[in-house]
């Protein structure tokens, strides 16, 4: 154990090296993890850590050179400007997602849906409730607001409800956006989030013509999928989904369709079966997404859907280990959330995952336009409005200018309070460069009107800390086979290309 006297002693002579900024935490087996401002990390034993902070490291040792290479120390005052410039460049790269402002624009085409999923946080409406459709006039104002974003990349993601129930508006938006873009010249792309059950050849021809990608939902095998994804007219959602998936892949191509799943109490102890189902249906990966406490999921009782966060953590780790095992057996299959985190840990690059950013990606990375033209910084904020709390509404495309919505006090206040650098507990956490804040959750779940929340009791923190800690443990073990799998995911290469011969 490090004693306080050693740690706090004053230096009586010039320091042999300079410490550069880092944070640290204790790990099992007397290890200490150090992470610097740009996410570079190193594990030390307690003796070496004590030497480091007491300026007693041997400047010819391998450890000294490792620490220098990773910018934990600087040799001298004269070297310091170059070290700082290097760190500044990496810092700027890590925060690159801030550079362009909002690139992801989610458009709620309708609240109508032909399903009534138990965990739906969109709080969908009956399939014939057309008053919940986005009309053409609103959709044009939405497109005009979208193209006010300074980002050179614009991704329009159609959501619902089930967008295919209002496909005319989808088509109208695609046509109008392409027309506007002839002048704006941005990198424009489209994604359709659909349960696929209403798709047909004519819709698919349109999607193919305009290169629209598909994001769909598959919760697992038939019994798991049908348990919570309920067709309003009855029958098996899974059976119809599979039939439509085949048609969709035939027309669009397999790589144009990806799937998401939601972990509920139904499948949390069966994630290996879920993964097998994804493999059987020829998907290349899965995002193991925990339940969000919004919409129907909040109304439905805890016994039916929800689970303690520790159960999710255990299930996630088990599923991840199973996926690694499958990869080592020669089947390329990713866990997408793990890929995002490993990219943040092992590379200097920014990853645009708005649910875990600092400052939060709410509004500045992605935003959502409701069927009636109301604009929200996240889908969860929109859900709060559906449950009666309009706190996070940024404005409406008919009544408010782009500046009022995206440079107004509502969004600025959210962003100001969502920097982990200043949140108690987060401020000293070594996972800071990899993590982020969720101001809407802090407000909604932890009832904090300042959007910060209470980190020691935050399930959001608990989940991310546990998963990142597990990944750091893997990196510390540095098993070659496991690292090959991780790097194959990050670099999008075949694992055999990475193996040392």
């Amino acid at each position, binding site marked *: *154990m*490090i004693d*306080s*006297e050693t*740690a*706090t002693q004053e230096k009586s002579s010039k320091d042999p090296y*300079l*410490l*550069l*900024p*880092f*944070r*640290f*935490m*204790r790990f099992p087996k007397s290890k200490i993890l150090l992470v610097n*401002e740009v996410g570079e990390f190193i594990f030390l034993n307690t003796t070496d850590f004590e030497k480091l*902070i007491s300026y007693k490291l041997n400047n010819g040792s391998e450890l000294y050179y490792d620490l220098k290479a990773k910018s934990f120390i600087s040799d001298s*005052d004269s070297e*310091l*400007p*170059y070290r*700082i*410039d290097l*760190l*500044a*460049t990496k*810092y*700027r790269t890590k*925060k690159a997602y801030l550079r362009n402002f909002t690139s992801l624009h989610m458009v709620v085409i309708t609240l109508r849906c032909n399903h009534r999923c138990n965990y739906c946080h969109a709080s969908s409406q009956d399939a014939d409730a057309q008053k919940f459709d986005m009309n053409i006039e609103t959709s044009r104002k939405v497109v005009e607001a979208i193209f006010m974003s300074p980002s050179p990349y614009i991704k329009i993601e159609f959501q619902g409800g089930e967008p295919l129930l209002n496909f005319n508006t989808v088509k109208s938006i695609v046509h109008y956006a392409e027309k506007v873009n002839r002048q704006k010249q941005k990198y424009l792309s489209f994604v359709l989030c659909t349960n696929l059950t209403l798709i047909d050849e004519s819709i698919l021809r349109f999607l193919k013509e305009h290169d629209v990608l598909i994001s769909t939902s598959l919760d697992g095998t038939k019994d798991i999928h049908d348990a919570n994804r309920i067709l309003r007219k009855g029958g098996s959602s899974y059976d119809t989904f599979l039939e439509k998936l085949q048609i969709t892949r035939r027309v669009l191509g397999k790589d144009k369709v990806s799937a998401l799943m939601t972990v509920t109490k139904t499948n949390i102890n069966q994630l290996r079966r879920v993964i097998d189902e994804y493999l059987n249906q020829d998907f290349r990966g899965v995002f193991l997404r925990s339940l969000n406490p919004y919409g129907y999921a909040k109304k439905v009782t805890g016994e039916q859907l929800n689970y303690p966060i520790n159960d999710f953590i255990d299930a996630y780790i088990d599923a991840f280990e199973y996926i690694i095992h499958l990869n080592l057996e020669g089947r390329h299959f990713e866990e997408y959330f793990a890929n995002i985190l490993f990219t943040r840990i092992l590379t200097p690059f920014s990853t645009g995952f708005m649910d875990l950013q600092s400052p939060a990606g709410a509004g500045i990375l992605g935003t959502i336009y409701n069927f009636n033209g109301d604009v929200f910084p996240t889908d969860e904020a929109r859900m709060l409005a559906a449950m009666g709390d309009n706190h996070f509404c940024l404005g409406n495309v008919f009544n408010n200018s782009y500046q009022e919505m995206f440079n107004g006090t509502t969004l600025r206040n959210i962003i100001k309070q969502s920097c982990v650098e200043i949140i*108690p*507990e987060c401020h*000293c956490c070594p996972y800071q460069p990899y993590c982020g804040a969720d101001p809407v959750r802090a407000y909604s779940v932890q009832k904090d009107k300042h959007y910060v929340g*209470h980190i*020691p*009791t935050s399930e959001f923190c608990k989940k991310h800390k546990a998963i990142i800690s597990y990944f750091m443990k893997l990196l510390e073990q540095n098993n070659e086979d496991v690292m090959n799998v991780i790097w194959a995911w990050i670099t999008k290469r075949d694992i055999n290309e990475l193996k040392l011969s």
Partner: protein
Amino acid sequence: MENIFAFIDDNKILIRLKKQFYEKLAIFSAAHKFTDNFIVKIDEIDKQTVGIYLSLKDSRNKELLKSAPEEFCNEVLDQQIRLDIEKKYGPIRDIIVNQAFSPISITDLKNEIKKKL
């Protein structure tokens, strides 16, 4: 270790720390971390000593109370180390962030370092 803490009752413990070794910020940062399972009160025992009272939120979790003193001592030590290290490199962090987000040259960077350190 026994002089550092004392059980007030079945659900409450008092940890005594010398102000000479631990700054207020380190103690508060450590105490905040324990607010998941404990109600925390910080008070002065005497001019040299600060007392941290940890009361269990849920009296069924008595095993947490047993390990709390040692965990708290380690945590406040870590927080103090963080503060001490921060005093040495804190200005460097400011320079990194400024350099990252403003178009200043290497020459100016040297002056900036001279000013802050």
